[in-house]
């Protein structure tokens, strides 16, 4: 049987090949066929999830909550030292100096990344801005480089970024942007989840992930993905993260 794996579409382009390398390593380690399907956007990935087409997923925290609560997935591991943080940025020459300077009517650009949009909106609350009041002036684009492009062209006033994606922008692009505020939540992160079809092999998958990095080959795989290591995630850790996400929704 061939299983299907996918990755939250907020992965950075330079790590695409890393996920294919991981998939090859994974298939060899488990001795089973796994097809890696990378979706271009959140909508098409969510449709595949709804139709139970996914067995393994590196999920963002927002989707992880839904997969665990509604689809019977289980979180096994998360990348060490990585948490999901949002950056609210403006063009470097924009007059605003702080979130509180943002005014109703300003144009917001973001991707469809659900947790970054949620955290981003929370970061705008001190300026009395929320999704309802912003709706008419919100634009969604397909990637973080496009968010940057909209800001630099003056087609938007403020943009939301996944912190890792912001760091991965070209240096020249980053130099022309300015961070207004950056989240420091620490406890919200992506995780690797297995679905019900692989439930009987979850211990084996968990142990293989945790052991990555013990030999040169798997260390190379981790490097290609931009990870230091996988660390275990307990059921209570996941429940806590989901509770926390619930408080933010």
């Amino acid at each position: 049987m061939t299983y299907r794996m996918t990755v939250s579409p907020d992965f950075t382009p330079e790590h695409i090949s890393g996920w294919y390398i991981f998939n090859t390593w994974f298939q060899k380690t488990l001795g089973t066929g796994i097809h890696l399907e990378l979706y271009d956007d959140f909508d098409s990935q969510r449709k595949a999830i709804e139709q139970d087409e996914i067995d393994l997923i590196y999920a963002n925290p927002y989707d992880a909550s839904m997969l665990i609560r509604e689809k019977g997935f289980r979180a096994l591991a998360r990348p060490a030292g990585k948490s999901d943080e949002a950056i609210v940025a403006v063009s470097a020459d924009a007059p605003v100096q702080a979130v509180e300077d943002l005014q109703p009517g300003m144009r917001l650009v973001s991707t469809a990344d659900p947790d970054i949009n949620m955290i981003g909106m929370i970061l705008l609350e001190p300026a009395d801005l929320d999704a309802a009041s912003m709706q008419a002036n919100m634009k969604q684009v397909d990637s973080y480089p496009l968010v940057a492009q909209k800001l630099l062209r003056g087609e938007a006033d403020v943009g939301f970024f996944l912190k890792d994606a912001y760091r991965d922008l070209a240096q020249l692009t980053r130099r022309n942007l300015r961070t207004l505020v950056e989240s420091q939540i620490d406890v919200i992160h992506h995780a690797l989840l297995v679905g019900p079809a692989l439930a009987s092999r979850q211990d084996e998958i968990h142990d293989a992930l945790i052991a990555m990095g013990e030999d040169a080959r798997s260390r190379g795989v981790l490097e290609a993905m931009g990870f230091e290591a996988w660390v275990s995630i307990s059921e209570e850790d996941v429940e806590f993260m989901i509770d926390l996400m619930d408080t933010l929704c």
Partner: protein
Amino acid sequence: MDSTETIEPAVGSWEATIEYYDGSSRKALITDIETPFPDGKLIVSRTDKAGVITHVNKAFIYMSGYSEAELIGQPHSILRHPDMPKLAFHDLWETIENGNKWHGYVKNLRKDGGFYWVYATVIPNIRGGEVVGYTSVRRKPSRTKVERAMEHYREMRQEEKS
């Protein structure tokens, strides 16, 4: 700033009695020094079903002025500021004990008597269908909404006194 039942006025600080909904009370030193909420952070804590603190994050420790050891095992009401009406917390407990999410603007008391405003959300932690405790997350509030809350709480306290 006004507080309930000022007892020993002193320069820059005074002692006030904090009254809880269950009829108990404690005295605390109060000052009018506000600690600004740090940008981008969330204050996170968890309690057991009785409201006793079981987990705090670094932002909680920084903003409250207590050490982690001083906080764990204490009732969450250690942060209760005398400017908060008793009824606000009654509403909170009634909401979460019914398994629902509560949110509102809260003025918290620091260990040093100062204060900080938050927008708080509290949810019940449900494990195996049972409520085992509560998670509270506080974020930076809008100043306009804090000002509205101050006015509202002042009126509520007046009603509680009468």
